[in-house]
């Protein structure tokens, strides 16, 4: 009891120190597309009315648990017959769908990027810092973009297979943004550049080896062919 209180005491003191250091800890924003507007809000407040659908947020069903008990009827001396169905009913998926379109677009982009001679930038383990080699590659890319002034380029951030899927998505975004920011520094218009992170979900190399990891830790520059 005393010990537990002591632990809490430590946690509380630590929390106080943290809040003291971090200052203001939150603010609320209205949901909605491009607006960067943020509003300082009193705690726990939610803003916006509930009736008008906002851009960027879709409809949401009630997902709270409707009934407990799990459909179990208990073990009885005179059990009635229970029909066993398919459990959680699952819809059949139609694999035809849009699957071809995505890959066609990607192939077109890869071909155009290769033809333009765009260079990738590579990163150290756990890092999103642009190295000297990276700066040289990006300088060549910047030159190309300046002489092809209508070209739109997407920087894809990729990671090696080590680490978690989720954190690698954030790491990949940092890598892509670091490359984009350097291109902007070199004078490429920010409106001609976009970023996307693929984390470790689309590796270019599939071996469990450092040589392969190095190839996967990359900012891959892609010439946008569509919109």
């Amino acid at each position, binding site marked *: 009891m005393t010990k537990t209180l002591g*632990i809490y005491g430590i*946690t*509380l003191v*630590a*929390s*106080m120190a943290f809040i003291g250091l971090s200052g203001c*800890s*939150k603010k*609320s*924003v*209205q*949901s909605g597309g*491009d607006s960067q507007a*943020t509003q300082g809000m009193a*705690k726990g*407040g939610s*803003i916006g009315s*509930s009736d008008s659908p906002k851009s*960027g*947020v*879709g409809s*949401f*069903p009630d*997902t*709270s*648990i409707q009934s407990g008990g*799990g459909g*179990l009827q208990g*073990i*009885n*001396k*005179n059990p*009635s017959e229970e*029909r*066993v169905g*398919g*459990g*959680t009913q*699952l*819809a059949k*998926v139609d*694999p035809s*769908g849009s*699957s*071809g379109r*995505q*890959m066609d677009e990607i192939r077109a982009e890869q071909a155009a990027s290769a033809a333009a001679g765009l260079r990738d930038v590579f990163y150290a383990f*756990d890092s999103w810092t642009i190295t000297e080699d990276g700066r040289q590659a990006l300088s060549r890319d910047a030159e190309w973009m300046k002489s092809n002034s209508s070209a739109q380029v*997407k920087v894809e951030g990729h990671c090696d*297979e080590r*680490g978690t*899927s*989720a*954190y690698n*998505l*954030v*790491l990949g975004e940092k890598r892509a943004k670091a490359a984009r920011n350097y291109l902007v520094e070199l004078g490429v218009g920010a409106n001609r550049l976009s970023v996307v*992170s*693929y984390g470790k979900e689309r590796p270019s190399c599939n071996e*469990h080896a450092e040589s392969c990891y190095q190839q996967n830790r990359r900012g891959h520059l892609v010439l946008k062919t569509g919109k």
Partner: protein
Amino acid sequence: MTQMKLISALVGGLLLVAGALGILESGAADVFLEATRPDFQKIALGVVGIQNAGGPDWLGGRIEEVLKKDVKRSLVFDLIDLPGMGIKVHDLGTGLEGGAKAVFKQAAENGVSVLVWGRAGLKAADKEADVNMEGFVYDSGSDEVVGGKRYVGSPSVVRLMAHRFADELVFRYTGEPGIARTKIAYVAEHGTARELFVMDYDGYDARQLTADGFLNLMPRWSPDRRFLVFTTYRNRNTQDIDMIELATGKRWTVISLGGLNITPALSPDGNFLAFASSYEGNSDLYRLDTRTKAIQRLTTNPSGDLSPSWSPNGRELVFVSDRGGGPQLFLMGADGSNVRRLTFEGDYNAAPVWSPRGNWIAYVCRARREYKLCVISPDGQKRMQLTTGPGVDDSPSWSPDGRHLVFSSTADGKSHIYMINADGKDIERLTFEGTHNSAPSWSPAS
């Protein structure tokens, strides 16, 4: 009961202190102190057999095999080797016949608490006819056949009959619904695409849910098991959060703010969706009020914040932030208040999931350059590494009874899905097909 009162008194007292100091905004510090009960005495249960009664050769044996595995995995029962005890019959009829009495006596004398048996057959001679299954339960405490179950269904659902029977047994002896009918959602590679799938908790009956031909990542269940939320690259240039209804396949976008929108997690009451979004710059945490559609920003740190997971009472979130350099686990109130760091050991801790019992948070820790499963108590006092050896372990997800975790691992080369007990014992591989299976998410119990 006494323990509960103690906890309430303790938490109440802390809130008073905290309130006086003016540092807590609402019921924070809400951490359960529930013990894991390592002394939990399993109930000795013997499966006598499921006799074939006029069906195909495999019928009784299949049900018996599934039932035994369910009983063992429940961790509530100790599955007794009856033949090893000298009990070699496979059928006890209705349990009222003379021979059964001798078997009951022998089992009780050997410390067996529960005996289970039954039979299964086809309702008609026709191969497409329904399967009938009857199960019986003898309880040595009351020395009587306490009852049974009667199931009917198509031959394709016999595994489900065994799962239902197993869950009834768990329910009878613990009051919990059991996990044998739960599902696991996951991501599987199809060519260069990653699509969502759902399978039974034991790895059987995998079904494909999406067919975009591109990336769908990190599915999570709704509390009512009817929906999944997940990140999709369907629009390629932004990563949105979609929702899909399992029964109909109907799918729509719930978050499309722009940027990277990942790691969605519905609160236990379904009223909030917590997620990470980079639409205002770097990855920060937000929560959507699913009724009013208002979005509240929970973190404003210039570093990456992601992977929120709700405490079972919905009052706190554990999440990942690299504000200290590498990724570490942090806790905060569900409104973004009272942020504090939870992990200090090692330079890489990520993918946290709060156990449904509240007493542990499972996550991926880096140990000797490998990514392994760890658990830590929400007060940070207890920490344990669950897996060892080579390979990247990722995406732990708790069973609804809090006794197991499912996760992905490259321990056998390609990424596959595995189940492990919450104490790190009994690793069981669940997927064997395909080139890449990842991001498992365990459904709530029905």
